[in-house]
C-alpha cells in the first residue's frame, strides 16, 4: 500500500470517528434505557430529532443566542424524556416485550408526524459554532466540523461516565439498573430513577441531534439512518454495556466510512442490517456485554 492510499484510509477513519461519535451518543442513550428498564426505545432517534427542531426554533425563530438555546433545549429534552417515561412507558412496564416495543413505535410515529406537520419536510440548515474549514494534522485534512463533533461527543461521554461513577445520583441509577428489588430495599426511589434515566437519555439524544444536524441537515426523517447505525453500534458493543455502546458506535462509524470508500457507497445502507444480524448470530451479547443467565 502506498503512502497516499494509507493517508486516504486514515482520512476515512477520522471522518468515520466523527460520524461514529454521533452514533455512539445515541447508542449510549439507548443503552442507558435498556440497562435499567429492559426497554429498547425505538423512538430515541425521533425524540432527538424533535428536540433538535426545538433548538432550531429557538435559534432561528426567536433569535436566542446559541448557548442559551442549547441549554433550553436540553431542559426541554430532559422534561420530554421524563414525561414520556412517566406517562406512556410506566403503564406497560410489566407488560410483555411486544407491548413496550409497540408503545415506543407509537411514540416514533407521533414525534415524526408532528415534527413534519409543524416544521415541514424541507431539509433545513442548522447553525453550528464551528462551520466549514479544515486543519492539517499529521498530513491529514481534518474538517473542523468533524473535529468539533468528535470533541463534543468525547467530552459528553466522559461527563456521563463521571456522573454515573462519582455522584450519589449516578450510583443510585446504576443500582436500579443492576437490581431493582435490592435498590428499592435500600430506599432508592426506583420509579423516579427510571424517569430520570429517560430524561438523561433524551438529553443525550438531543446533543446527538444537535451535533448531527449541521452535517446531515434538519428534517423529520433525519434520524432514521442514524438510529439504525446507533442500534448497530449498541448491538455490536453489547446492549448492556455503556462502554460497549461508545466503542460500538465509533466502530460502526469507521466501518461505514471505510466500506463506503473502499467498496461502494450504495452498499452502506444495507451494512447496518448485515452488521446487526452478524453480531446477533455470532455473539448476541455483543463485544463488551455480559451474558445474563436465566433461571427457568
Amino acid at each position, binding site marked *: 500500500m502506498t503512502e497516499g492510499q494509507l493517508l486516504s484510509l486514515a482520512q476515512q477513519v477520522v471522518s468515520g470517528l466523527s460520524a461514529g461519535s454521533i452514533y455512539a451518543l445515541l447508542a449510549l442513550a439507548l443503552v442507558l434505557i435498556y440497562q435499567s428498564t429492559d426497554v*429498547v426505545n425505538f423512538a430515541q432517534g425521533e425524540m432527538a430529532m424533535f428536540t433538535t427542531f426545538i433548538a432550531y426554533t429557538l435559534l432561528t425563530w426567536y433569535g436566542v443566542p446559541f448557548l442559551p438555546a442549547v441549554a433550553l433545549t436540553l431542559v426541554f429534552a430532559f422534561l420530554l424524556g421524563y414525561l414520556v417515561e412517566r406517562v406512556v412507558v410506566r403503564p406497560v412496564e410489566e407488560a410483555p416485550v*411486544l*407491548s413496550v416495543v409497540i*408503545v415506543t413505535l407509537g411514540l416514533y*410515529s*407521533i414525534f415524526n408526524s408532528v415534527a*413534519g406537520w409543524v416544521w415541514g419536510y424541507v431539509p433545513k440548515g442548522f447553525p453550528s459554532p464551528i462551520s466549514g474549514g479544515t486543519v492539517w494534522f499529521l498530513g491529514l485534512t481534518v474538517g473542523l466540523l468533524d473535529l468539533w463533533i468528535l470533541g463534543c461527543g468525547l467530552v459528553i461521554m466522559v461527563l456521563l461516565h463521571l456522573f454515573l461513577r462519582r455522584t450519589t445520583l449516578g450510583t443510585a441509577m446504576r443500582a436500579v439498573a443492576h437490581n431493582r428489588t435490592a435498590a428499592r430495599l435500600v430506599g432508592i426511589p426506583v420509579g423516579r430513577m427510571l424517569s430520570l434515566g429517560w430524561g438523561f437519555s433524551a438529553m443525550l439524544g438531543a446533543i446527538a441531534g444537535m451535533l448531527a444536524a449541521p452535517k446531515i441537515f434538519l428534517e423529520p426523517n433525519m434520524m432514521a439512518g442514524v438510529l*439504525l447505525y446507533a442500534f448497530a453500534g449498541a448491538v455490536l458493543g453489547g446492549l448492556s454495556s455503556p462502554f460497549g455502546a461508545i466503542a460500538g458506535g465509533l466502530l460502526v462509524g469507521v466501518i461505514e466510512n471505510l466500506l463506503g470508500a473502499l467498496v461502494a457507497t450504495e452498499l452502506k445502507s444495507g451494512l447496518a*442490517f448485515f452488521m446487526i444480524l452478524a453480531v446477533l*448470530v455470532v455473539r448476541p451479547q455483543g463485544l463488551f456485554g455480559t451474558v445474563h443467565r436465566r433461571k427457568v
Partner: protein
Amino acid sequence: MVGRILLTVLVICLLTAPLFINQFANFVLSRMAIYTVVALGLNLLTGYSGQISLGHGAFFAIGAYGAAIVANRLGLPWPLCILTGGLAAGLAGYLLGWPSLRLTGPYLAIATLALAVAVPQALLKFEDLTGGVQGLKLSQPQPPLGLGLAQDQWLAYICLVTAMIMVWLTVNLVRSRIGRALIALRDSEIAAQAVGVSLARFKTLAFATSAFYTGLAGGLLAYLLGYIAPDAFTLVVSIEFLTMVVIGGLASVAGSIIGAAIIVVLPLLSSNLTDYLARLLNLVGLSAIGATTKGLIWAIYGVILILVMVFLPGGLVSLYHKAKNLWARTGPVKKAGAGDRPGERG
C-alpha cells in the same frame, strides 16, 4: 349454528358487493382484502408464535417485486406470478428465520427493523431488476370474457377470494398440530421443547409462512395498482402492519380482519379528522408552517397504538370477549341450565 349462518351471510354479502359498489369502493375493498392477508400472516408470527417483526414491509416489497418481475420478464399468467411473489417472500422469511432463532424480544425487533430499512434501499440499488426510483409497471389481469365484469370488479374478486382462502387456511392452521406447537413455543419454549416440539423447525416455519402470506399480499397489491415503486414500502408500512394486528387483536383471526379493515378506512376518514385537528390547533394559536395535515395520520396511529397497548392489550376483539363475559355474569339467567339436568326439576 348462529355463527355459521352469520358467516355464510357475510361471505355472500362480500361476494356480491363488488357488483353493486363503485370503482373507488371496490378499490378500498380490495385493499382491505390484501391487508387482511398481511394481518393474518403477521399474526401467525407475532400473535401465535410470539416473535416480533418490524420487517414485514420488506416481505411485502419482495412479494410485489417478485410478482412484477416474473410477470414482466417471463410473461406468466397472473396467479402464478402472485404465487411466485409469495414463495420468494417465504424463502426470504425462511432465511431470516434461521438467525432469528437466536434472537428474542427487542433483539429480533432491531434485526427486522434493519431489514425493513435495507430492502427499499436495495430496491433503489438494483436498478436493472427493479427499475430503481421509477418502479415497475405491470399489466392488470383482464376479466374473463362472458362474465361481464369491469376491471375493478374482477380485481376485487381476485383479492377477496384470495383473502377468504387464506382466512380459511389460517383458521385450520392454528387449530392444527402446527398451530398448537407455535402457541406452546410462545407460552414456554422450555416446556414445549420438553414435550418434543422442535424449536428450530417451528420457528423458521412460522417465519416462512408469515412471509409467504405477506408476499402473496404484495403480489396482489402489485396487480391492484398496476405499478409499484420503492417508496410504497418504507418503514412506515411495517409499522402500519403491526398497528393493524395490535388494534384488531393479537392471536386472533377475527382481529386480523377487523384490524385490516380499520387501517384501510382510517386514512380515508382522517383527512377530515386532521383538517379538523389543524383548525382546532389554529384556534388556540398554534398555527403550523408545515401546513400539510395529511402527515398527521401517523400521529393518530401513534396515539391509537399507545392507547390500545395501555388500555386494551387484547385489541378490539377482546372487547367482544369482555362483553360476552359480562353478559354471562350479569345477563338474564339462561333457561338452558334447567334443561341440562332434567332430573333436578322432576
